[in-house]
């Protein structure tokens, strides 16, 4: 009996809460109705995975966007209001949310998202609605290909894979093993471009082993033991940072001292936290060098980040999200804030824009032409090793 009473009380309060929230929403809507008369705000939609499998990445990226909004709150005298929506790391949700941002919140430009498949689910929607979207860290080439309304601030997997293959080769690796997260498009894509580039450099037999694991796996000991027997010079293991950190940790526990390499997703505090001293010395490609400000804008970003999140280093994801916002901002400066089509054209014409990661220029596909940075982890900190420009790769 008591139980029932408790539960009904709970239910009642839940309903009350929901009503309060509903009213709160209502108030906000009323406020919004008034605002356009004053025309004081511009809405920018943000959709990121804030819950679900990719919540870690989404959380880091939202920081970048919020920080950028804090530093650059206005465009043409109007305040920029971020409309942040959670796509739950789920494709159906991602599509819903993108449509909602466009139709309901009437945003003129959308930023996001982490995770290429999430971005692709929204691709048709932005294309249909002719509202431009700028991807933060969706590195799959398919995101922008054939879609005139999707752009991105990050480099793409073929480039990243080639950079790492060249880097591995230049470090003297001739026999490389791959460990890929077979259910993760990012990992599989990156591994594939790495393999292609590395085979060109070191011959067709240079990949000694390709091991697979699934997203969410915790135990990699079997794959690693196999790998150890093949005795490769290096291991390329792109993947989510949670799994990757455990992977490297277990490799070290098995006594493997071979260098490990990965992709940009490793540059997060979480990777350091989970991996601890076992991830010392791993090498990975990244979007930018957080120790050397490439532009005045980068300096601003680094300082603001250090102030906001004490004791943490900004990762590539955060910087990419910051860049996204800047690209949208610059386009709105140029094209005004009313016409999505004009904003799209302005984004497409982005050239030598000063962003946190250097100068950004978008090519015909909507992908930036930018250099990659190779980093390592030293004393628990991300440490810059080398910059690789797109021209360098062509020269080889």
């Amino acid at each position, binding site marked *: 009996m008591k139980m*029932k009473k408790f539960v009904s009380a709970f239910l009642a309060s839940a309903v009350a809460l929901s009503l309060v929230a509903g009213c709160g929403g209502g108030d906000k809507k009323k406020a919004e109705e008034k605002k356009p008369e004053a025309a004081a705000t511009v809405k920018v939609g943000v959709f990121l995975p804030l819950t679900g499998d990719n919540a870690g990445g989404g959380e880091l990226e939202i920081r970048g966007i919020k920080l950028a909004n804090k530093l650059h709150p206005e465009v043409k005298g109007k305040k920029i209001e971020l409309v942040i929506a959670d796509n739950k790391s789920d494709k159906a949700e991602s599509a819903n949310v993108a449509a909602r941002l466009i*139709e309901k919140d009437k945003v003129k430009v959308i930023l996001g998202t982490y995770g290429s498949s999430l971005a692709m689910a929204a691709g048709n929607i932005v294309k249909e609605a002719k509202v431009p979207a700028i991807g933060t860290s969706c590195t799959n080439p398919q995101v922008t290909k054939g879609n005139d309304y999707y752009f991105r601030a990050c480099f793409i997997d073929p480039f990243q894979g080639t950079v790492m293959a060249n880097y591995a080769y230049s470090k003297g690796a001739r026999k490389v093993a791959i460990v890929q997260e077979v259910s993760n498009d990012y990992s*599989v894509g990156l591994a594939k471009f790495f393999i292609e580039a590395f085979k060109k450099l070191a011959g067709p037999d240079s990949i000694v082993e390709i091991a697979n694991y699934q997203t969410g796996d915790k135990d990699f000991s079997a794959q690693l033991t196999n790998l150890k027997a093949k005795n490769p010079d290096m291991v390329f293991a792109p993947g989510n940072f949670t799994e990757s950190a455990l992977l490297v940790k277990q490799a070290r526990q098995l006594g493997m001292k071979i260098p490990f390499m990965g992709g940009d997703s490793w540059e997060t505090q979480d990777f350091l936290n989970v991996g601890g001293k076992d991830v010392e010395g791993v090498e990975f490609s990244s979007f930018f060098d957080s120790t050397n400000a490439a532009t005045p804008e980068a300096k601003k970003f680094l300082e603001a980040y250090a102030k906001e999140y004490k004791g943490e280093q900004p990762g590539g994801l955060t910087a990419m999200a910051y860049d996204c916002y800047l690209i949208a901002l610059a386009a709105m400066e140029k094209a005004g804030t009313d016409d999505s089509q004009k904003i799209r054209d302005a984004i497409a014409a982005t050239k030598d824009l000063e962003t946190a990661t250097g100068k950004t220029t978008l090519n015909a596909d909507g992908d930036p032409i930018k250099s990659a940075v190779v980093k390592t982890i030293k004393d628990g900190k991300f440490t810059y090793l080398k910059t690789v420009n797109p021209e360098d790769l062509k020269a080889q």
Partner: protein
Amino acid sequence: MNTNKRNIMLTLAALVVLFGVACFAQTEIDSYVRRIINLCLIYAIIGLSMNITNGFAGQFSLGQAGFMAIGAYMVGIFTVPVNLRADVFYATPMHPWLVNIYFPLWLALILGGILAAVVAGLIGTPVLRLRGDYLAIATLGFSEIIRIVITNATPITNGALGIKNIPPLNDVRYIFLATAISYIIITLLLNSSYGRAFKAIREDEIAAEAMGINLFYHKNLAFMVSAFFAGIGGGLYGALLGTVDPKNFLFTITYNFLLIIVLGGMGSITGSMFGAIIVTGGLEYLRLFDEPLEVMGVVIPLFRPGLRMVVFSILLMLCVLFWRHGIMGTNELTWDKILNFVKHPLAGFRKKGVQGK
């Protein structure tokens, strides 16, 4: 007979009216709301399909995600325009046998359904001997196996990279027609002798067998029909999103449909329809829990992303605990009831009128 005829006419009329509404929605309503309506309709098909096994035949199956995946991939593999396929399969080229085969959407949907049904038939033979929890976990296992095979069969399915460039289908009319046809077929099936056999099995397997019902045949039939419609629903889902990848079909998505049939009533066709609408629409409505809330200028810290799902799961729990039979239980919303309801308040109104005099 007369009322029966009347009911059929009424149903048809309602479908025509609803189709009119769908046409109206297609042209007049913005794409966000259309998307939600479409998702409701698709979830209704899949919910219904799950209800055939779980609600009517009483076989607790959690394999819907796998059958959806089969349907979705059928659409994904065969409806992408041939000239765009090289772009999609940029990592590993598509299998040369498949690369030039193109199906229109309707054909891919039906083939997806059939393939799902065939797979269900193969799975059903060993699995349907099990009961209760064992069946649940075994079907769940199969749906995971299907997903893992799809993830690894790269030349056919493009593996984890998924398939993009499926011609997008955010068309309420098309999806409404698909839902209506599924609804009619499932209703006819469940009202036939097969449907009565399913219910008999649900109520008491031993008694049903004693009455001469072939348990294995009917269970397998229910399972296959269920898979067929889950395949169609999955195909539509893939077409609505314009892209499919294996992560879409993790077994957790099955819980959505479980919720739909629990809320609507296990063993009620109309209940599943309502359930789909309430769950899909409700989740969108609850989105306000994820947004920051300001009450009189004070930001309440409780409201941040994730709260929506917490509220949602609490509501699910409360519904399971205190409202076990859902909206409809095993009943149906029939025309007789609607007409009675319409007549009844009118009668009451007239009485009041008399009193007034």
